[in-house]
């Protein structure tokens, strides 16, 4: 191969990685530098460089990708300062939330099946995307945090920083952590198991059908679960109370009450149950029992949430009246 062809190939390979707008300009300069260096070497040796010498020179300059990397503006997906929290959240969600859920969900079908290995393979084939889905969502959240944090990170005032808790809120700390872990568990379950799901069918032919309203409210419920978990994570990382936190909790409480009411006001059943070996009268009783329990749960949700509305409202009122000390350890 001729020297000029080697140089052409090298520069063309560099070009592939360069920012489009500056490609020709950078290449012209690199080409000039390379030819100057070759001329210098040739005049020192009093002869043209042979192919091996030119290859050695190009290798010394570095691979095309490495050369081009110097011209590419520094880019990042996640702020390095947030990486430790990112890894912590990923670890918690994958190891302590997703893995137990997958094990729990797979346990029954695998051990009831006559072919456990096949059942395991079937389960793996159906659920292999779950970790990627979860990683994708968490990464997107941190990316958005990084993208938009510049808008508020520099707008700060020492007088508006959260107060230091009057006492160590150990109990609250555990509550917030548990809230985050269970919140992510619920979110993962909803995101992975309930996605595009209109019924659960078991090996025995037993099936639990879900009313269409679950599909209609799917994304709203998913977003609420994620927001709840994130607020708990924020409270866990930043234990001191602030007004914004209470307002966000109030907004989430509002959404939760609306969802519960939408579900409650629905006339028909929330789930239907049927099975090949279940008599119609027994199935009807079972459906009545399960839906009755769901009705009680759906009534309890707004009641419990209303307590939180009251608590957050009280915190905000007390903060407004300057009675800050007792509320510092509460979220």
């Amino acid at each position, binding site marked *: 191969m001729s020297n000029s062809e080697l140089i052409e190939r090298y520069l063309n390979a560099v070009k592939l990685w360069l920012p489009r707008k*500056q490609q020709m300009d*950078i290449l*012209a*300069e*690199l080409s*000039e*530098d390379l*030819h*100057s*260096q070759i001329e210098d070497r040739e005049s020192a040796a009093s002869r043209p460089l042979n192919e091996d010498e030119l290859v050695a020179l190009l290798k010394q*300059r*570095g691979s095309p990708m*490495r*050369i081009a990397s*110097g*011209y590419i503006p520094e880019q990042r997906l996640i702020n390095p300062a947030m990486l430790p929290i990112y890894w912590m959240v990923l670890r918690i969600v994958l190891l302590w939330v997703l893995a137990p859920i997958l094990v729990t969900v797979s346990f029954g079908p695998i051990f009831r099946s006559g072919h456990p290995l096949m059942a395991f393979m079937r389960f793996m084939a159906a659920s292999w995307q779950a970790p990627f889905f979860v990683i994708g969502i968490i990464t997107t959240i941190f990316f958005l945090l990084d993208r938009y944090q510049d808008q508020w990170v520099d707008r700060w005032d020492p007088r508006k920083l959260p107060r230091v808790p009057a006492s160590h809120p150990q109990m609250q700390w555990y509550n917030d952590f548990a809230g985050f872990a269970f919140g992510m568990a619920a979110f993962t379950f909803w995101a992975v198991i309930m996605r595009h799901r209109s019924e659960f069918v078991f090996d025995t032919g037993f099936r639990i059908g879900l009313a269409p309203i679950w599909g209609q409210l799917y994304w709203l419920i998913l977003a609420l679960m994620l927001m709840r978990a994130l607020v708990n994570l924020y409270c866990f990382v930043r234990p001191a109370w602030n007004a914004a936190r209470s307002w966000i909790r109030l907004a989430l409480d509002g959404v939760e009450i609306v969802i519960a009411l939408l579900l409650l006001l629905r006339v028909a059943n929330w789930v239907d149950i049927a099975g090949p070996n279940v008599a119609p009268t027994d199935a009807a009783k079972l459906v009545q029992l399960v839906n009755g329990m769901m009705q009680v749960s759906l009534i309890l949700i707004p009641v419990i949430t209303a307590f939180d509305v009251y608590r957050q409202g009280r915190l905000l009122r007390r903060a407004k009246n300057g009675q800050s000390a007792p509320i510092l350890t509460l979220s």
Partner: protein
Amino acid sequence: MHTNGTNSGQFENLRLELRRGCLAVAVLGQLRTELYGYAIRKALSEQGLAIDENTLYPLLRRLESQGLLVSQWREEDKRNKRFYRISPVGEEVLASLLAEWRQMNSALERILAVPAGKTEEQIQ
């Protein structure tokens, strides 16, 4: 326990950090005279500050985009070359950087003049 490999790796990282800022000052200083890329490399190298092309050209572009350098393509020895020189803003920044450099250097000299384990008051 640190191995020699770890120590040399740490030294290399610190050396690169130390060089990074110095190179920008050196390039600005060198470009008080107009030069093209390869000639800048040679001039710096002859004065004991070798810099490879993968560091120099991105640095030149960065300094130019910051308005500290100006450049123009010109033909010389039958080849098109991009000539750089320091801009008026660059000259002001260079003067400030050199003042900062001298201040840091004299502070460093004072710090290192005190033997390890002693304070300046103990010496006096």
